[in-house]
């Protein structure tokens, strides 16, 4: 059952990705103070249909007692490999509901990997090093971006109705709005709203 549905979702997504019908949409995200929101994660979800899971691969490295990158956005069903490039042990874990796991103590570049099959925000930590922190955003939509320094992301979207979500881990800020894509290219500017308390997990839009 699940396999059949997954197949249908994947077909639908493939159809939606047809380049000829796509419209160029630029989404700019600003912090509450108006600056460009670097590292903000933008997800554009089509309101009328779900995309099929993707089996992509991503790497969250551990270097100098830091996760690298600290923000990773992957599509549902992707596999993330956690190599350890430090000379010490790490014990990577997640108590997030989207994906709860615990890697045994390991050292070196043993390619420990986890599959993130559920959309949601996963917070990664190291049981040994309290200060190690990384976010893995698992999204169902194929349209997403981790914004560069200019806080702007470019999307080619088929016309239709979308929900645009923006989230920023350090600010703990989020923005969500509906976007209707026509045939003409468009530019959307979002301003993040900072919640009263810093809770990036709760702030995750989905």
């Amino acid at each position, binding site marked *: 059952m699940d396999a059949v549905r997954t197949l249908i979702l994947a077909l639908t997504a493939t159809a939606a990705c047809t380049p000829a019908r796509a419209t160029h949409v630029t989404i700019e995200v600003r912090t509450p103070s108006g600056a460009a929101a670097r590292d903000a994660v933008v997800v554009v979800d089509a309101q009328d249909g779900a995309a099929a899971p993707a089996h992509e691969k991503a790497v969250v490295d551990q270097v100098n007692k830091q996760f690298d990158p600290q923000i990773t956005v992957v599509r549902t069903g992707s596999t993330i490999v956690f190599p350890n490039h430090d000379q010490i042990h790490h014990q990577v*874990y997640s*108590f997030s509901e989207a994906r*709860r796991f615990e890697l045994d103590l390991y050292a070196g570049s043993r390619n420990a990997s986890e599959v993130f099959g559920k959309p949601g925000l996963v*917070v*990664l*930590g*190291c*049981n040994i090093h*309290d*200060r*190690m*922190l990384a976010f893995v955003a698992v999204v169902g939509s194929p349209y997403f971006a981790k914004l560069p320094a200019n806080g702007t992301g470019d999307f080619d979207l088929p016309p239709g109705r979308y929900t645009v979500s923006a989230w920023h881990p350090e600010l703990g800020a989020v923005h969500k709005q509906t976007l209707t894509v026509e045939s003409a290219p468009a530019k959307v500017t979002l301003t993040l709203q900072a919640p009263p*308390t810093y*809770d*990036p*997990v709760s702030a995750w839009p989905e």
Partner: protein
Amino acid sequence: MQLRTRIALTFSFLLTVALATALVVVSLANQDIKERTVSREVRNFRSAFEALLEANRRQLTEAAHSVTDDFAVKQQIALRDSATLVSTLENGACRIARANLPSDASSTPGCDEALEASRIDGVMSVLTAVNGSVMASYGSQLEPGQKFPHLDEILASPRGQSAFMVVHGRLYQLVVVEVRSPLRVAWLIMGFELGRKTIGDLRRNSLLDVTLRIVTQRGWVRVQSTAPADAAGDEKFWVDPLNLSDIAQMQLAPTRVLLDQAKQPFDELRNKLEWLALLSLLATAGAAFWLARNITRPLENLTKAVDRIRAGRYDTKVPVERNDELGTLAEGLQVMQAEVLHRDQRIRRLAFQDGVTGLMNRTAFVEALTAALAIPGRPIAVAVFNLHRFRRINENLGYDVGDAVLRQVAGRLATAGGTPAREGSGVARLGADEFAAMTPLDDQADARSWGARLLSSLSDPVVVDTQPIDITATVGVAVTPDDASQADELLVCADLALQNARSEKRGLALYRSSLKLATRDQLSLLGELNQAIERDELQLYFQPKVELATGRVAGAEVLMRWQHPSRGLLGPAAFIPFAEHTGFICRITQWAVDRAVRQAALWHRAGSSLPIAVNISTDDLADVQLDLRIATALKFHGLPPNLLTLEVTESGFIDNPDRALQMLDTLATLGVQLSIDDFGTGYSSLSHLARMPVNEVKIDRSFVIGLEADEEFTTVVRSAIEMGHNLGLKVVAEGIETESSAERLRAMHCDIAQGYLYAKPMSAGALEQWLDGRPRVPLTCARTLPRERADADALPEAAEARTA
């Protein structure tokens, strides 16, 4: 109050003030010490309490971290495994309880036992979500899902500090630690209850009573206290409470032990001070008393000395021999005493000694006499002397000579009066020319010879600066016990005898009682004499004057008689001397002149003119209005002045010869005749006599009477008559009683005679009868103008002045 008491009281008072001040100062200082002791204790308490809180905080923080760092705990949180979380929290609490067990406790007691045995009152451990809702709780009675109260406030409290919270009436010290996996997923709140054990521990290490209070809806509520419930404590030592985050506070109060401890030094000091005060008060009182005595006893001695000196005892020994001010005072007193004594002696000398002669004065004499009279058994004689004409010696020869005369007289009297020298003999100078002497006698009869001896000692002239000066004296003598027994009376008696001697012109008279009677009579006479003139009791008697050669009547002398209502007819000797002494004579003279002139004028108008002679006394001559009165009488009654003769005694010139002479001159210009009465008895200096504007002299009766017996008197009388005639004066003799006397006088060419031989004094009527048929000296002959005088220049001018 006595000086002694006052000094002692002053000293004690000052000391008391000083001691009281010291006590107050010590009290204040002690109060300060007390407060400082308490506040030091409070500081210590605060430090201990803060150290405890910090230790608690560290322990709690550590314990919390041991929970939150546990991966299993993080898993349980992620899994929301409440039951496991609660047990985890309980386990942490047990661990912390065991960590706080006393060192002697058994190693692994159960959780509750450990908690009970530990120093900790209670442990609270609560795990909440980030939003504060309770996930698991131990020891707090909070239910899962409940919101942890005041979490935001607790989190807002500064890092490194504990928070405080009241949960269900219990006060907790809290720490909050976050749980990260790796983001913050929960809060672990751990806390110790601050209750009985904590307070007790604090109290054990402090001397303060601690009361813990919390804020409730009903206000401050007392949670725990170490203070006895009934002890209010020493309210003023309550210090500011230690506030625990506005919801609780520690009230601190010094315990009795602390207060006692703080008070102890003061109590000891005060105790010592009180003893010191008592001792020093006693010592001061004693010292002050001793000092006061040291001052006042000499003062009392000085006072006694002063009293003795005041009483006149100048031999008083002033008893203070010291080197201080009192010694100086005593010395001054001693010196003062000596000077007072010296002055006293000088005053006594002045008071009792005559300055000129060195003899006793009257006062001293009376004293000495009184003293002598006090010795019974032998008579005391008192003699009073009067020097004649001493005044003239002073005036003519100077006071130096007069004083020298007095000194010599004094010496002679002292020698004579005191020979043989006897106890109780003495000589004094009573007044200017008056001396007195006294001596005890073996026999009263010796009084006369003693007096005569004294008198004769003065018979030789006194020689002053080789100049011999004649002195004569009269003496009156009185003797005890017959004459008087008191000193004053004796002197009076002697004085009366002296007067008697003088009036009788004798050198010496003894007192006899009749003199006193006479004196007494005279005293009563004074009053009566006053009335005599008004009552017309005085009468004029006339004694005729007869020309010796022819036996013709030449005139009459007017004499006074007093028809006394009780004593009968009194002669002039009975009252005229007295009147002269009392100054009454002037009035009598005036009366006599007036009546005599009236009578003479009557005769004159009747064609039987008779010259009359009226006696003028010494006092009358001193009366400046005498001439006016006489002129008035003559004019009033219409008598020619030449019919009036004024008889003046020689002694009238002694006191003030110039003025007397001037009056005589004035009277002469009136045209009245002037006569010198008692010629030869007094002093009659020829030079004076030559200057007097007189018409006649009257030889004193004593000479005339002496004519009978003494050939020597004959010579005197003859030379007196010749002298009068040589001066161009008529010579009158009075007191002629025998024919032989008359014959002698006639032989000596005396002009006029008067006496019993011819006629006694008689009344005017009797005279008229007596005159009847007798031949008279013709008036023209009787009228004798004033003779030509050697210094005739003064009189005519005066006469002219008068007549003009």
